[in-house]
């Protein structure tokens, strides 16, 4: 495949990869080629203010589509900026490199963030006719506890073989209700054949495990981007129309003392730098900044809930990010509500 200059070139290249993978799968029973990955990114800026993580962006023929050029791994990143708030970064880099490139880009560009998929997003295909759930990943790091006392939990279960173990389904259901889901695996069937197999992650990444039609792949990823963009618009409207707060509900009790110590130093995966402003045995108020964007956040935390207030024009993407990371780190299954109605779902 030569230099990619048009959206059609990109599709042809991806389609060839899918077909080669299917041929290898049919022959050897597993895929060998690097799988397509995509990352949903939340942005507050136009492309010319954000730059490219590998080289420089060059426009494809289709409006809003870019490819990276330059000496470092050219023609490996493809960016769809056709939406205002959610971009899609496609890549065929291997997982380690692709994750590092994306993480580095998001970390260094203020105003660029991942899309943090809620449980509802991750289970979006549940009970939708052509889709079957094929697995899920659960995570609980117990990040506020000391290493000796941490009750960590991590599980990745692929449905199929696991269904042959009596009682395992109940265990999975119990764990699913208590801990945060960080990935779900789905397959789409047409006439009993798998046409698409994907794994979505809570940090907005998707891996295409199998596919037969590039348009079907891109449409499915675009649908998730649209869902997320709608959720962002809804949450921004709620924030702008009043003085209300987002409510996070947890399944695990938070150690408030440990939380307070962690956020005072701006440490931990939550990336919050907060000052405790009111202390009750089972309720604390905090004010400070979200170190990811340096937007102000106010957080009122109870044993199994938190109220998140985002003053000014602070980005509401903080709500799903804090919910997702805190859920996986120390709070278990986390849901976001506004006035009793689930949002980002």
């Amino acid at each position, binding site marked *: 495949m030569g230099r990619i200059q048009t959206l059609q070139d990109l599709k042809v290249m991806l389609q060839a990869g899918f077909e080669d993978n299917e041929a290898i799968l049919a022959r050897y029973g597993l895929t060998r080629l690097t799988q397509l990955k995509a990352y949903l990114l939340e942005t507050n800026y136009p492309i010319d203010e954000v730059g490219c993580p590998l080289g420089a962006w060059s426009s494809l023929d289709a409006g809003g589509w870019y490819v990276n050029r330059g000496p470092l791994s050219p023609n490996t990143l493809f960016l769809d900026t056709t939406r205002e708030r959610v971009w899609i970064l496609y890549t065929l880099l291997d997982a380690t490199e692709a994750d590092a490139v994306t993480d580095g880009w998001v970390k260094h560009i*203020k105003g660029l963030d991942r899309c943090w998929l809620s449980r509802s997003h991750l289970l979006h295909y549940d009970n939708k006719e052509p889709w079957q759930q094929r697995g899920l990943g659960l995570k609980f790091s117990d990040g506020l506890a000391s290493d000796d006392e941490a009750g960590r939990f991590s599980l990745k279960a692929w449905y199929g073989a696991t269904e042959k173990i009596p009682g395992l389904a109940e265990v999975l259901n119990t764990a699913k209700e208590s801990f945060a889901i960080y990935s779900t695996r789905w397959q789409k069937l047409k006439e009993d054949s798998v046409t698409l197999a994907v794994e979505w992650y809570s940090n907005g990444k998707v891996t295409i495990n199998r596919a037969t039609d590039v348009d079907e792949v891109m449409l499915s990823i675009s649908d998730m981007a649209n869902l997320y963009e709608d959720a962002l618009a809804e949450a921004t409207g709620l924030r702008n129309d009043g003085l*209300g707060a987002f409510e996070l509900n947890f399944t695990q009790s938070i150690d408030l003392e440990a939380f307070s110590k962690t956020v005072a130093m701006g440490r931990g995966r939550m990336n919050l730098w907060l*000052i405790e402003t009111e202390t009750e045995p089972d309720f604390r108020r905090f004010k400070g900044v979200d170190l990811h964007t340096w937007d*102000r956040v106010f957080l009122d935390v109870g044993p199994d809930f938190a109220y998140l*207030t985002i*003053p000014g024009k602070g980005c509401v993407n903080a709500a799903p990010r804090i919910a997702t990371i805190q859920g996986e780190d120390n709070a278990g299954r986390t849901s976001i509500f506004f006035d009793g109605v689930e949002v980002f779902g």
Partner: protein
Amino acid sequence: MAELDRRIVLWRNTIALFHERNRPRFIGPFRKAGYAYRVETALSIRRTGEERNPDIVASSPSGWLVIELTCNDHSKADKLDSYRKIDPRNLGLYGLQIHQSAPDTICSRLSEVDDGEHSQIIVKDTVVVKKVDLLSDEVLRLALLDFSGTDLTRLPTIPIGLLPESKNHEVRRGLVAIVMQIFQPDSKGKTAYQMVEEGLDKLSDKVGAGRKTAMKRRVEKEMEVLMNHHLKGYLELKGDGSYVPTGRFREHPKTLERISSALQEWAYTTQQCIDPSDFGAVEHDGRGSEDGYTPEDDRTTSDPGSFMR
């Protein structure tokens, strides 16, 4: 309740009555009665067009209302009387449902004061409702009666950090997160005026330039204490009036913890200030005629700087 945050608590506990929470379960009476609210509304008196700026205006399918929030111990009867003449046809400007009738008028306070023939909600630790029989909206009346006695101590913080009437220690508390933002990488810093705008949040458009100037001066005083004492060596004032981190600042957990600790002491522990007369100070300046928010204050209170009227 500490005297320090009375005004913010009054706003927080009143705003919460329009919202709903799962944990602990809480449905505000205005929410229950189907009211949507706005806090930035400029409305006008029917026929004369005189402007009125009630603190909160809200509307539902069954009625509409205005709420006056005050920590002042003087009656708000006159002001609330004038709100009855507001032309409801302009509610549509704020996306609120339009009615033909006069609004229900409510005064929200932290302690009881006679506000004449107007309903009253006392929103200190537990809510108390008074004179609800004056409400024309039966749905709201029942919701308020049902809500009486509910605990209000653990409600979400509101985004407003500063009010025009904030005193020195309240200014410090309102500035904490705004000051923390100054330490972001490649920070251009913030001026005292920017801090005022950010602290006022959604009230910013309602507060006139004169009052903002007075607030700016209070912010400068408190920032001077912070810069020269608690965060000495970490924060400096540039010639253009912006507060910026010094070269000594490095984004490191120990440094962030040190700054957290200093800010906590500045805002929540000590009350060190340059001029002891600032304690409990009431601002008499900055209330020029361009401030559409203040003239009525002067007519209804002996406290001329009172934002809460």
